């Protein structure tokens, strides 16, 4: 049961990583900020610029 729970947690963490939600949480923590629409937009500007400066794989 414990390993099932651990697997589910890992899966959710993967989804949050793929959706950049983890990266946003880290951004808030590193810069000691709180969530706000402006902060999210500021984060997106940096994150997406870096993310889409590389080609998607074929």
């Amino acid at each position, binding site marked *: 049961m414990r390993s099932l729970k651990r697997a589910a947690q*890992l899966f959710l*963490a*993967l*989804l*949050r*990583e*793929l*959706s*950049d*939600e983890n*990266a*946003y949480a*880290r*951004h808030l*923590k*590193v*810069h000691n900020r709180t*969530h*706000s*629409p402006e902060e*999210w*937009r500021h984060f*997106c500007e*940096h*994150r*997406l*610029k*870096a*993310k*889409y*400066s*590389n*080609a*998607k*794989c*074929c």
Partner: protein
Amino acid sequence: MNSILGYLGWGALSVLGAYALAGIALGRGESINSIWLVVASASIYILGFRFYGKFIAAKVMALNNDRATPAERLRDGHDFEPTNKWIVFGHHFAAIAGPGPLVGPTLAAQFGYLPGTLWIIIGAVLGGCVQDFVILFCSMRRDGKSLGQMAKEEIGRVGGFTALLTVLLIMIILLAVVALVVVNALKGSPWGTFTIAATMPIAVFMGLYLRYWRPGKVLEVSVIGFGLVVASIFAGQWVSHSSTWAPWFTLSGIALAFCVIIYGFFASALPVWLLLAPRDYLSTFVKLGVVLMLGVCILFVRPELQMPPFTRFIDGTGPIFAGKIFPFCFITIACGAISGFHSLISSGTTPKMIAKEWHAWPVGYGSMALESFVAIMAMIAACVLEPGVYFAVNSPAGIVGATADQAVATISSWGFPVSAATMAQLATDVGEESLFYRTGGAPSLALGMAHIFASSIGGKAILGFWYHFAIMFEALFILTIIDAGTRVGRFMLQDLLGHVYKPLGRTGWMPGVIGASAAVVLAWGYFLIQGVRDPLGGINSLWPLFGIANQLLAAIALCVATTILIKMHGARYMWITCIPLSWLVVVCYTAAWQKIFSDLPRVGFLAQARVLEQQIAAGTVPAAQMSAVQAQIFNNQLDAVVCGVFLVLVTTILLDSVRLWYGILSGSVEAHVTETPFVLSRLKAEEI
């Protein structure tokens, strides 16, 4: 006791893998169950990972968990962040899994199921996994540097510039090919066209939702987006039956090609948050979900393979693409066995997330093994179709005849019986007007997937839904590749043009953005239109060009990897990367030579151009078709030049590398390893 059990377990797995592989390799005369492919491939991937991958990790790379990785040393909460190894694994897999491992095996199934399957398994274990793993390791030991930077530093300036130029050229061909796959899947299909068109407003809605209404709630909006996409599949069925709406979404290949080109231009110039990013989130989740679902359904249904192990087309006369099994099977299947593009991912985001050095083993080697398994599933999906149906869907009219009766007569005469009635019934079942001449691989893959899904859930009654679900799944991430690829191509072009006129290099300067976007879109758009107009279906010329280019990029990555291994260990372990490198050089040079110089018009670009010139000279070309034939002549000559340019670029980097290797091994050049110095890791296990 445990070690004895371990040896017994690994021994049993080896025997099982060998038995299953022998079963698929030696079985003749009767159809085999797809489970044999699953067991053989899974056993060999696990063994390759456990023994060959671990040998490389321990002996060659000497991975050391006490050594701090760039993620730990340069931790900034953005790009560099130590991350749980299974999350990095999933992240890396999602990044390397594109349409290549799905479409390549589907096209290569024209040789039968065996050649492609063996190449996927062996190529991945000895080539693809090794390339991804070694490049990831090299980048991780160099602060997450890119392949281009490593080529420049390890081999020289020529190598670095060549790598950059090669990537730009490959991307142009790649974008044209994947766009052609989408166009061929959607032409004359109001259901499919509506569904894919609907993903654009859905993505824009998601972008606005994230930007203004619920900022940061990516998972939430992705669930809503997925619900809307599924609803659009049902709505697409209604549209296809509506006499008012169906004509609006029933488009020819050329019309669709122009739509994709215009879309590509706007998507690359629009803000990323509005269209590209939300659709990328959606396509990533759909991709992972569908791959998982396909795996489960194959295990549940265990379908029989209808395709024989070999077909008559190993002699090079295949209707889907011309050319003998060697070398064309090995360039048609790139991403499922070895893909140069992966080296860009392995030297991109992933090395900046690795928390402990040993995590590179499952991430680098393991992710590629899983991607290769996806290619095996695509091969199964293609081969569960009746061969006659498979060839009817994938063969162009220029080969099998322009009417349904001609097509089925030609295909049946090859020994793959199929009737017009069967094809008509199948088209009705999946809600299409016709399934003939759907070249590109996507429709036949969607048919195979729909067959497997429908056998698990819903039966024949919802075959149409599953077919269009599969088409949506393929088109969704292909369009994301087009968006992102055009944007990256624009950055690379602006980077180059900035040396000529500085403002052109600024990514925020609107005239530069518009000009560079237009140039990149026109470049791949030209090849796309060429493919759509090609009477041989386009795939015959463009897919081999893409395959050669992609494998040549892998050759560049392996040159960099070999250089680093020689600097680390001398000649001792260079065979690890030299074996796949030598194979790729032989395959790519042979394929490129044949595509340029073969006397067979369906294989050689120049021979095809000569035949058309002779037809014009003999006066057999009607005046109405004169300009089209002249365009075909030019296109064939252009393809030959592009192929030649690829060869020149890679020969340059190869010769430069061999010169360096000789210098190091003979002692005339100092082997300077450019790894970052050892720093003791202070990262605790509970932190990751």
